[in-house]
């Protein structure tokens, strides 16, 4: 049904038509006057195993719909803006499919996509192919860039990314571990998926920097997600006298590992995991095992940033989420919000927001202070398509209002973000 060469041809015909129209009319402003409505496509996992990442999106989109209620002032003219949300169902094939639908059927002007390589990569690829500007986030940039076979020399033409990278995770984890007394023996839990393979990669992942800092790494090897037995890993860690456990696992695997470790008498001093420990619900589900676990923090209410759209501080944004949903704040809230900040800013600056190339140029020229930090492509990022945001280290501690609170315990990589405490051993 979805024949890629056919889609490409259609996209070419469309692009050609727009270009011809622009040429015939001579002035881009006249074309602009034709834009009756700006459509923004938004793809994220709403159902399936990745759904916790997409939980905040409903809130964000409602907030944006309220904001865009009367349209946006684009070039002195009020233009209605419509957000079309699609669910990736946590499935990369489905993500690509809905992206093509959004581009070819709904004819969106701009694509926003969030949460894990399994969502962002196929959507970004579809946009690159069909020449529609796309802004993605909530994927470390390595799996996003190299996972899509990006060429560092050329980069991408239509797709832009906001997030941090593995080097930041590694730096944060190491800074945290350096701040506490351990025997510097690390055990790694790297599953056989996009993240696990990137983190465990000998060149781009953890092994190199760890040995440079004098840490030894016990990596028993890649395993399948939804693993029911971690005895092999625990035995290997025990044998090597491991005191620090790290990795990037899904929540059920974190619980199975921590439970079995306790049962089998393995007591690490530090457990720092990516992915599994991001969401408060996952920590609550761990019960007492959750106390003292450490994880990377991409966004929190104590981040000293303000939304360019609503002028809310990070704290105010998190509070309004908690008020509206009666749930504890989660990290993706800030990034879902920031995607729309960048989108609106680019639409306002674009010479002709209805034209893909013009909008893409505006996206590329972004220099905006958002609720997740500064967004500027080609500046601090490693490539022209990646804008990096700051990353710090957090620890889950028993809270007063909530069962567990995420406290920032190491900000050496981003001193502007205030730390709320010191890292403690488990």
């Amino acid at each position: 049904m979805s024949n890629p060469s056919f889609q490409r041809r259609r996209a070419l015909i469309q692009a050609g038509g727009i270009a011809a129209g622009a040429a015939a009319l001579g002035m881009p402003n006249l074309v602009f006057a034709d834009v009756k409505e700006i459509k923004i496509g938004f793809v994220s996992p709403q159902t399936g195993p990745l759904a916790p990442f997409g939980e905040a999106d409903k809130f964000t989109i409602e907030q944006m719909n309220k904001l865009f209620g009367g349209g946006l002032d684009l070039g002195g003219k009020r233009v209605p803006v419509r957000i079309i949300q699609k669910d990736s169902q946590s499935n990369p094939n489905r993500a690509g499919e809905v992206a093509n639908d959004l581009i070819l059927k709904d004819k969106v002007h701009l694509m926003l996509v969030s949460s894990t390589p399994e969502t962002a990569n196929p959507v970004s690829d579809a946009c690159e192919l069909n020449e529609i500007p796309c802004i993605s986030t909530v994927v470390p940039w390595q799996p996003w860039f190299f996972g899509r076979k990006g060429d560092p020399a050329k980069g991408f033409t239509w797709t832009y990314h906001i997030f941090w990278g593995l080097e930041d995770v590694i730096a944060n984890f190491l800074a945290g571990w350096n701040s506490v007394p351990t025997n510097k023996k690390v055990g790694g839990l790297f599953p056989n998926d996009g993240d696990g393979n990137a983190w465990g990669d000998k060149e781009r992942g953890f092994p190199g920097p760890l040995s440079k800092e004098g840490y030894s790494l016990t990596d028993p090897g890649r395993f399948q997600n939804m693993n029911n037995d971690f005895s092999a890993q625990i035995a290997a860690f025990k044998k090597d006298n491991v005191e620090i456990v790290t990795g990037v696992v899904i929540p059920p695997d974190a619980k199975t590992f921590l439970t079995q470790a306790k049962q089998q008498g393995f007591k690490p001093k530090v457990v720092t995991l990516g992915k599994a420990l991001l969401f408060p619900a996952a920590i609550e589900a761990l019960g007492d095992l959750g106390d003292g676990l450490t994880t990377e923090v991409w966004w929190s209410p104590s981040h000293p940033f303000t939304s360019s759209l609503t002028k809310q501080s990070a704290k105010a944004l998190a509070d309004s989420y908690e008020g509206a949903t009666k749930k504890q704040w989660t990290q993706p809230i800030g990034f879902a919000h920031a995607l729309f900040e960048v989108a609106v800013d680019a639409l306002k600056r674009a010479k002709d927001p209805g034209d893909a190339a013009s909008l893409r140029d505006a996206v590329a020229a972004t220099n905006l202070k958002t609720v997740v930090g500064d967004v500027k492509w080609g500046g601090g990022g490693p490539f022209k398509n990646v804008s990096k945001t700051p990353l710090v280290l957090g620890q889950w501690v028993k809270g007063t209002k909530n069962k567990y609170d995420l406290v920032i315990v190491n900000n050496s990589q981003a001193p502007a973000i205030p730390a709320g405490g010191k890292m403690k051993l488990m």
Partner: protein
Amino acid sequence: MTAWLDTIVQGVLLGGLYALFAMGQSLIFGVMRLTNTAHGDFIILAAFGAFSLALALGLPPAAAPWIAMGVLLPIAFAAGYGLQRFVLNGTLGKDPLPSLVVTFGLAIVIQNVLQEVYSADPRSIDSGGLNIASVEIGGGLAVGTLPLLIFGVAVVMAVAMQWLFGRTALGRAFRAVSDDRDAAELMGLDHRHVYALATGIAFALVAIAGTLHGMKTTVSPSDGPALLLYAFEAVIIGGMGSFYGTFAGGVILGVTQAIGFRIDPGWGIWAGHVVFLAMLLFRPSGLFPKTR
């Protein structure tokens, strides 16, 4: 030596978990030849049910899951009976496709309803510290109390089901409709009722498996399909209609995986699949087939 002993012990315990998942499937598959592709999702549904019941009861966490399980059993039985009687019976026939499609659809419905009600957050049933308790068995080996308990429950289930199948009138009815439905009808058995009873009992087993699974790890709405595969493999390895076989199938699967994990963590699941495929190749009817 201790390392390998540890591997085998952990593998056997893991096998107990797989056997627990597989018992309900074994019953449905053995009696009705119905491949319930929603089996894993029913386990997750039961886990969420027990989670809600345990919370609603408001008892101390050491007791709540067990009482929740007790409350859940009759509910699950009734649900299973109703489902078979009013939905699945209509799909049975020479063609295996309708029942596959219907249970596949049920799986999708369950996942989405769970997500709508419970959101995508992972949940776990608080067992008051039982999940992290362990027993020293000497030689530096320790096994978890809950896995040991799960193993024990699986053994009891296998024995009880085997007894039910072999020694009771109900079991005779199950075997009769399984072997020759038309002849059983002539003898005065209502196959629709017998089938519904089988699914009811299978669902009670699912309720036990789900509650224990929810205590052991976290569950989220989309976890079901991952459980289905191991349950199915355990049933096939063990042979249709034999609960000892299913139990043995689970343990073989668990031990194979544990040995595979020990050699390389990427090999565990694969080793289990290899044993499963070898079984299909060399002994397609399984280890201890009772019905055909």
